[in-house]
């Protein structure tokens, strides 16, 4: 039993957590993609990953957009229930900076020397990284800013570069776009787990519009993902198998998919907080230490 507990304690080999959250769509009618990314940002911050470990890339500004009837807010639920933008948000790449080149440079670490720390992914071989992409996509590609695209081959090669340079311990890749499963088809590096909101040939659908704001607020997969994550707290023991069940076809209309063949551990033993949270390992000891016992005097300087 003690061995089992010790085994559980040293289960995952990671010491720090990073998150790279990217929204690739521009223009006001793509409000839902920014809301998707911000809701994952909010969950990840709530579960403990600090801003210095999150690289947040938003391709357009929805909160202070002139068409937003409530400035400095981005809502995820209609009737303006939940403001995912909040009061304490740090966006690292915004507007025209969100390009395929910058995204790949962040992943592989090949940034110009003068890039500030908040814009770098300074992960090491003991980092668990969560990568979340959302936007418009197709079979084998994801569109950035309506003007360029990243293919699944490029993404797989970028992850292989990360593996070769020992930039991650384990990586969880979540994508919420149309035909999202095509983006993880080409992965070949070890320790990658991927989730997508729809299979090849299917479209991911948006959830609900808000009549006051005038746009669709969230995509279905991320909406149910957010609902699932709201129940997670830093000490919860929910594992990945429950995450795979998020948003079945009856709720999502599309069929979410996942890929775990490259992952070395059993997904049933991987905790959600291994990727979404930054949990410090605390060892509880039952024995007492006597602080009032006489100390040895230090040698004279």
């Amino acid at each position, binding site marked *: 039993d003690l061995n089992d507990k010790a085994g559980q304690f040293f289960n995952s080999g990671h010491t720090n957590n990073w998150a790279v959250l990217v929204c690739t769509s*521009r*223009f006001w009618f793509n409000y839902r993609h920014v809301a998707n990314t911000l809701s994952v940002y909010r969950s990840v911050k709530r579960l403990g990953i600090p801003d210095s470990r999150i690289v947040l890339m938003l391709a357009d*500004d929805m*909160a*202070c957009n002139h068409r937003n009837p*409530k*400035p*400095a*807010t981005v809502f995820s639920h209609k009737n303006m229930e939940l403001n995912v*933008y*909040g*009061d*304490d*948000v*740090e*966006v*690292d*790449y*915004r*507007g*025209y*900076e969100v390009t395929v080149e910058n995204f790949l440079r962040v992943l592989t670490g090949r940034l*110009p020397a*003068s*890039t*500030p*720390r*908040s*814009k770098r992914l300074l992960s090491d071989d003991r980092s668990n990284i969560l990568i979340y992409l959302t936007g418009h996509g197709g079979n084998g590609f994801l569109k950035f*800013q*309506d*003007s360029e695209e990243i293919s699944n081959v490029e993404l797989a090669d970028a992850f292989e570069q990360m593996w070769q340079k020992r930039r991650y311990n384990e990586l969880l890749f979540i994508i919420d776009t149309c035909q999202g499963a095509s983006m993880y088809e080409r992965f070949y590096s070890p320790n990658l787990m991927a989730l997508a909101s729809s299979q090849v040939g299917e479209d991911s659908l948006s959830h609900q519009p808000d009549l006051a704001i005038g746009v669709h607020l969230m995509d279905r997969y991320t909406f149910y993902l957010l609902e699932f994550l709201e129940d997670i707290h830093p000490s919860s023991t929910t594992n990945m198998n429950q995450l795979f069940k998020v948003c079945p076809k009856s709720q999502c209309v599309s069929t979410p998919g996942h890929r775990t063949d490259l992952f070395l551990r059993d997904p049933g033993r991987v905790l959600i907080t291994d990727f979404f949270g930054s949990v410090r390992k605390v060892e509880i000891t039952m024995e007492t230490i006597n602080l009032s016992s006489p100390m040895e005097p230090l040698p004279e300087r």
Partner: protein
Amino acid sequence: CARAPMYDFQEELVIRPLHSGDIYASFQFRTVWDADFMGDQKVSHYRLFPKSLGQVITKFSVRELHISFTQGYWRTMQWGQPYLPSPPGAELWVWFQDTVTDVDGTWKELTNVLSGIFCASLNFIDSTNTVQPSASFKPLGIGNVTDHSFLRYATLPREIVCTENLTPWKKLLPCGSKAGLSVLLKSEKLFHSTFHSQAVHVRPVCQDPQCRTTSMELRQTLNVVFDLHTSGQGKREWSLFKMFSRTLTEACPLASSSKVYVDVTDNPQVRPFELSPATPLLTQAVVLGDRRTYSVYDLTQQASFGSSRSLNMLLRWKAADGEMLRPLLHSERYVAGYGLQAGEIHTLIYNHHPYRAFPVLLLSAVPWYLRLYIHTLTVSSKGKDNRPSYIHYQPSKDRERPHLLEMLLQLPPNSVTEVTVEFERALLKWTEYTPDPNHGFYVGSSVISALVPSVVAMDTNSTLDRPLFSSFFPCKEEASYFMRVYTEPLLVNLPTPDFSMPYNVICLTCTVVAVGYGSLYNLLTRTFQVDEPSPGLAKRIANVIRRFRGVPLL
């Protein structure tokens, strides 16, 4: 034994009701630090001065740094003059110390570091939008520098300001957003306004009149104008709670002075609004060339908060306002012309003083893709030609440098001066277009700097204890005060190609090649053979029987 560097932190809020029914609130947070950044001693212990800025100043040998983020445009004719002017978008100007050898390289690194600190895309500042003004941006701190090769100025008119810029700005304050005046800074109210501008100004100042010791001053300013109809719900009654959805409960414990000023200048004899809670403290200050009266609430005194332990100023209007004093200096700028080839930039500068003429410096930095024809530059006042006494023009270089035009103009009294220059639009390479090129391309605001004649005598003693809003610009003479006016940014459409054309061309070419070459190849190499038509059903059955019998087929 070295003396520990002394800090001083002051915070202040000025509320000024505007004639149009809107209300203008200006926050200033000032930290003065006795450390000598320009000396040899390495600075390593930070208390009230934020460490991130201190390290930036030391590493890049910055003498003065001014950065502002603004959303909205300041309407001078409706609101009067602001205490601290700023152009829409982001503006950054820096004076480096004369020990810097490669100013351009240091400037590039500085913009990258600042983009990380303020979560803004300042890394888009490069040589195509940086200029070296020769006269308009003199140092605002001490120092008699004349070498303008150490000055760099850049604007990003497209830069968006939102909560992600306010969050790191608030983190630079000693009390953060937890105590003092900064508890009022809530983004949901601040960005739901007609004008919002936050800025950081770092400069060296004198501590005593003889200027024997210098110290580093950091001023963080935030100006916001709340609209009568969107924030005020149409009712002309303002309170702190209505503006910020918060009230004040205490001063920042680290502040030596924490005051709120409300502009209550009687206009003409009777004050148009009623201010509650009443305060006995009244002070007068000379600001923007006028002597104004202010009610002062001192937050370091417990009595200011009253029995409810919170301070919420309420301004209720009883009578209509009198006439607004027309601002003496005002400007407009627009693009004239039609089509996507050529156009004209018109800048209008108004001098509303009835009998005094005064000179102004006009600075325009125009991107290289609007090719200015400087030989068409005309300056006219009241219909007659007005020759500028000083012109500094640096022509642009394609994809490297923008145009820089600086002129010293004498504005006749009560007149409009019009500066016109023609330009031609360039065709960019297809990779140089932004992802949304049909929105247009921005041209940064022009800057007009002037010493405007003042109605009352200005105070030239800079070390006296004065409210922060009246001591921002240094005052060297009594008869005039310094003012800076920014014009509107321009939005011009460049000839935009159809980006789907490469795809269309590939499809069309491949189709033409396939159909044309394919048909020709077939014609040249295909041979025809005569083929018997397949026989009818009866004949086929007969052939089958004949094959059995071994008899020749039909």
